[in-house]
């Protein structure tokens, strides 16, 4: 088995979603890799395909009705899309795990937290009941969850605490890759920061890779080492976090950064991106951002831009750089 420094490589992933009106081209040639112990961010507005990418990596997209038409997803060199059922059960939770957006709905309301945690440990780690309990309290302590919270039912706990518990359930199986799909969107702003710190702690202490999916540039730039910007089912720019913030290449990234700029908000200069993303019901053979782009001209309407390198690990899909 090849052991590169990348734990995950997504190559030319294309997927469509059949609807009564026709196929929705959700993912159009998505490629990126995630290194070991890296926190990789995917940012984009809703509907840009970031969650579908996450689901595809976990081999769950087909369950949601997505058809993957091309490409491969290599997890430590193995193609996830070709996993057998048996291999998949080992992979889910044990090797790659996900933290969902809404912690209030991620746990079964009818069982205590402890019960659901126990179920997960017993599935993935060959331990006795007693050992499982010990592991549970150890992880709870690590994520600063008070032991008595474990005996609670989900409805008795706050969103922040539940998301912590979801985190604990995932960490307990020691996965190599954690996908965090908007893990802080449903939390209070004050709790958000705590949770981000917690994720970083998990990443550092367990040498985990994290894919952090969000629509919030501030949150994502706080935790990620590299960031991919997604638009209309494509990655339009990938760069290390600082580089992206300081030298954004793609007009969409620039607009995104401007719209989140607090200084401008203070001065009452709201920058929004006019218009809406393109209709994905048709295949797009031009720049997908063309009709919202201030700089669009000539080539933009005719052909799709290819990824251009502009600096170390910095790639942009734009005709005019």
């Amino acid at each position, binding site marked *: 088995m090849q052991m590169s420094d990348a734990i995950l490589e997504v190559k030319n992933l294309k997927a469509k979603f059949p609807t009564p009106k026709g196929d929705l081209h959700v993912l159009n040639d998505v490629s990126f890799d995630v290194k070991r112990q890296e926190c990789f961010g995917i940012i984009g507005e809703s509907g840009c395909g970031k969650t579908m990418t996450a689901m595809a990596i*976990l081999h*769950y997209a087909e*369950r949601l009705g997505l058809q993957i038409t091309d490409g491969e997803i290599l997890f430590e060199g193995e193609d996830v899309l070709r996993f057998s059922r048996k291999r998949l*059960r*080992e*992979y*889910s*939770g*044990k090797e790659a*795990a*996900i933290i*969902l957006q*809404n912690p209030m*709905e*991620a*746990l*079964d*309301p*009818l*069982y205590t937290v402890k019960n659901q945690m126990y*179920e*997960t440990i017993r*599935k*993935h780690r060959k331990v006795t009941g007693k050992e499982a309990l010990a592991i549970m309290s150890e992880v709870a302590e690590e994520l600063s969850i008070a032991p008595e919270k474990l005996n609670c*039912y989900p*409805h*008795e706990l706050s969103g922040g605490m539940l998301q912590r518990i*979801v985190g604990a*359930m*995932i960490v307990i*199986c020691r996965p190599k890759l954690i996908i965090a799909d908007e893990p802080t969107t449903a939390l209070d702003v004050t709790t958000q920061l705590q949770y981000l710190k917690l994720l970083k702690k998990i990443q550092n202490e367990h040498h985990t890779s994290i894919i952090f999916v969000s629509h919030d540039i501030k949150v994502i730039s706080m935790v990620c080492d590299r960031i991919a910007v997604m638009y209309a089912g494509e990655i339009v720019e990938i760069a290390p976090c600082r580089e992206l913030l300081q030298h954004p290449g793609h007009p969409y990234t620039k607009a995104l950064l401007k719209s989140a700029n607090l200084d401008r908000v203070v001065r009452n200069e709201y920058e929004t991106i006019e218009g809406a993303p393109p209709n994905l019901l048709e295949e797009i053979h031009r720049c997908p951002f063309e009709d919202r782009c201030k700089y669009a001209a000539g080539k933009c309407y005719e052909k799709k831009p290819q990824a251009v390198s502009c600096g170390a690990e910095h790639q942009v899909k734009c005709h005019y750089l």
Partner: protein
Amino acid sequence: MKFFIKKTGQALITVFLVSIIVFLAIHSTGDPVGSLLPSQYTEEQKQQLTEQLGLDRPLAVQYLQFAGKALQGNLGESYISKRPVSDMIFEKLPYTFELAIVSIAVAFIITIIFGSIAALSRGKLPDLIISNLSTLFKATPIFFLAILMVQLFGVKWRIFPVSGAGTPLHLVLPAGLLGISISADMVMILRGKMIEALESDYVKFDRLKGIPEYQVVLKHALRNSFSSVLALSSFIFAHLIAGSVVMENVFAWPGIGTLSYNSVISRDFPVVQGIVLLLSIFTIVLSLLVDIFSAILDPRIRKKA
């Protein structure tokens, strides 16, 4: 425990209110004296009978007398047979209970099995068959099915006895049919709730944690959807009672259904009153059981109470 006490208290209050309503309802249907007297009667005879039955006293007094006696287990005497109503009811009650409990059990078993199968095979053949059968059973009057069954199983093929009670074989047709008829509604509710549960985040999260599918379905999806069905299931009692009156008459089941039918026809007020009161209590007790069982299944209900 607190939950149990509170629910029981509520149930007792309901029984009290129901007894008033039953009493008033019966008395608002008219004077029974006329139908009890011979066709040629004098005013004097009428007066005498009215006094004898206590119908000349104010309604409130009559109610208190009725309630006071009812608390001691005395529901009065039948106008027709002159026997104590409680005796008449209690000799029939075991049969009705037997039919009701077996029917409910059949209904829940059918609901759980077929509701789950339909939800898991959503849009595919098994789902279509189950959904359409459910609609068919909902749309067909139960007495028609009952008569059909009597014809087929009793007369044509002679597989099951179709009249009377006593052996488990006697139960097959009436309880089976009543169970199926009750489950027709519940199957579709369970199917809907289960589809909802299977698409919920917690099921997604369970699957993504690598929990095996059978455990996801049985431990998580089924328990969640069943507890929602249970919470909605009080409506089946009306169905159960109406259905058992029909079943008992068609299959000559010696229970309360037959008795109540005959008493209504002959305007035997004390008997009707006794039966309605008892059925109300029966329904209230079943609701109480449902509440308690729902609370056992769902911690959120325990907390709300």
